[in-house]
Structure formats: structure tokens, C-alpha cells
């Protein structure tokens, strides 16, 4: 639990993903397109991946991947990110957290 929260606050934008997950690929692509450089943690390739996945589930992240954190706060999964991007909130949050500048 702490490990996840710790990692989540280490960078303005942090995403927990799985390399085998294609929706994760889409969300990563979106962040790169916006010029953000999120820290990516692949749960299926990290030594502590299993624990992190359980921690994310206990935090209420459903599904547990992709799990997007901005400014240390859990924002949501793929559907939430896309919805927030459409109404402009995603960019706002990224700018506030200084993940991007415009």
C-alpha cells in the first residue's frame, strides 16, 4: 500500500500498467501525445508487481490497471481518463501538477 502511494507521489504523472494490456498502451500513448512523461510501472514486469496490484485493488482502483495518478492522487482508469480528457479536465490537472505546461 505504502509502496504504491510512495511511487505515486514520486512524479507528477504516474501510471501503473501491464505490458500485456493494450488499453494501457492506449493510455500511455495519450499521455505521450500530450507531452507528459509519466512514470510507468509495469505490474507484470516489476518484482513487486503482485503486491502492487493487490494494493491498487485495496485502494479501490477498479480495474487495477491502468491506474493513473496525477500529483499523487488517484485519478482513474482508462474510461475516466478519456472522459476527463474530453471535457478538458485532464490537461488542467496535468498543468496543476506541473506534468505539462500548456
Amino acid at each position, binding site marked *: 500500500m505504502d509502496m504504491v502511494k510512495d511511487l505515486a507521489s514520486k512524479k507528477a504523472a504516474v501510471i501503473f500498467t501491464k505490458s500485456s494490456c493494450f488499453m494501457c498502451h492506449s493510455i500511455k*500513448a495519450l499521455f505521450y501525445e500530450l507531452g507528459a512523461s509519466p512514470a510507468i510501472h509495469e505490474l507484470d514486469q516489476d518484482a513487486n508487481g503482485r503486491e502492487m496490484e493487490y494494493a491498487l485493488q485495496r485502494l479501490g482502483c477498479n480495474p487495477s490497471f491502468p491506474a493513473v495518478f496525477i500529483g499523487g492522487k488517484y485519478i482513474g482508469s482508462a474510461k475516466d481518463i478519456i*472522459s476527463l*480528457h*474530453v471535457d478538458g479536465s485532464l490537461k488542467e490537472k496535468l498543468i496543476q501538477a506541473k506534468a505539462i505546461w500548456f
Partner: protein
Amino acid sequence: MASASPRTDTSADGDIDDKTPAFHDNQGMVVSNPSERSRDQKTLRRLAQNREAARKSRLRKKAYVQQLESSRMQLTQLEQDLQRARQQGKYISSTGDQSQSLSGNGALAFDAEYARWLEDHTRRANELRGAVNAHAGDAELRIIIDGLLTHYDDIYRIKAEAAKADVFHILSGMWKTPAERCFLWLGGFRSSELLKLLMVKLEPLTEHQMIAITNLQQSAQQAEDALSQGMEALQQSLADTLAGSLAQSNSAGNVASYMGQMAMAMGKLGTLENFICQADNLRKQTFQQLHRILTTRQSARAVIAINDYFSRLRALSSLWLARPRE
């Protein structure tokens, strides 16, 4: 059917030449001379063959007609089922159809539900058009527009259910008309393209609105691109998995590995459903955001414009399908 061979007639002058001496065989049958006899036998054989051919032909015709009758009955039955399904919005399996695959049923059922939804949608759009032309007030327009937006939620929900049963049918867009399919993206239309169209149709817009809609169009496009990239990665990965399983020879260990790779490929296909859901969610969110930016009157014009555009696409499909061909 009479044996109509012309030669039969001419050679049926198996009229024995009176002048030819007849003789009796040891059973007391009158038999003609050798040359006459062989001619008679040939004739008789030919007649017998003709009779046999005629009989077989009659039997074949009878069998063919019986097949026609039974397939006509099946067709009538199918038509009735379809009619009922259209009325009830679900597919009812007719007798003897139990062997049909689940996905076949799912696809037909969805097509019927979509057709009903489209009818309903067209009716609502026409209602809105009528209200606009009758100079209805904002409040009344708002009610109709909100109803339309909620109605869109219905088809997204129905699509999600159908994608669970038959994701490839939804992805294929076969439930749309050919011209619509031309613009197919992840089982539906591209919101970013519709917004480009609307920016022109909705003029005049305030500067604030122009900026907001441009931003919306850009965001929708970015989200579409992101989803497309995920899909491409999926397709690439699927291709790699299948290519890997091709390189196997026939040893037992490799069969297990083949099955493992097939299982992996199956897992990958499972995520297609999620992509359709996200694409539909993008369409829904984009429309909702658009209507937050527009005034009620502009919203009405937007809804009507979109409806007109797709109507024309569907009309184009009909024209195309009915075009004269060599």
C-alpha cells in the same frame, strides 16, 4: 412423356416384310429373319431406354418440386420469425434452428434492435425539426434534445451487450449501411470528424465557442488516436502470436505450445470488447461536452445537422445498392 425420338418412327417399320419368309423357333414364337430381328431388338431396346429415361426424369422432377415446397415453407417460417423479432426486438429461434450458433442469433438480434433504435431516433429528430420550424421555445427544445441524448445512451448500452456476445459483428459494422461503413472506426463513427462538420454548419459561433469546440475536436482526435494505437498494438501482438504458432512441427511438446499460443491469442481477442466500449464512451462524452458549449438553439441545429448527414449517407448506400449494373 412420349418417346419422341424421330428415329423410332422411321424404324418402327419393324413392319415385317411380308415377303420375307418367317420361321418358328422351338417355342413356337414367330421370329423374323436375322437382320429384321436385330433391327427389332435395337428398336425395342431404344424404346425401353426411352421409357426408362422418361420415368427417371419424372422422378427427378417430383423430387425437385418436393424440395422447392419444403424450402418455401421454411422461408415463410423464417419471414414470420423475423417479423416477430422486429416487433419484439429479440430473435426467436424457429423450429430446427437450435443448431444455429449463439453468435448468429446475437448478430440478428442486435441488427433488429438497432433498426428499431434508428427508427425511434429518426422520429425524435423529425420531432425536433418540427419544433424548430414551429419556433418552439428553448424549454421545449431542451426537453427534446435531452431525450435524444439519453436515447443515444440506449444504443451504446445495447452495443455493449451485443459486443459481449459477438464482438466481431459490432466491429465489422455490418449492421450499418455500406457508405457508413466506409467511415467506420472501432465499431462506429469518429466524433472528431463530426465536430469538424459541425463547426461549419453551426456558424455563427462566439469566439469562446469556437475555441472550446476546436479544443474538443482536438481532444477527441487525440483520444481516437490513442485508442487506435492500442488496437494496432493488439493486432500486431495477435499476428506475432499466430506466426509463432505456425513455426511448430508436429511433435507432442509443440502441440502443447501451439495450444498455449492459441489460448494466449484468445485472451488478446477478449480485450476487443473493451476497445468498443471505450470508443462508444468517447462518442458519448464528446456529444455531452458539445452540448455544454452550445446554446439550446445551436444544440438543436447540431442534432438536426448530424441526423441529416447520416440520413444522406444511408440514402447514398441505398442508391449505390440499387445502381444499374452490367
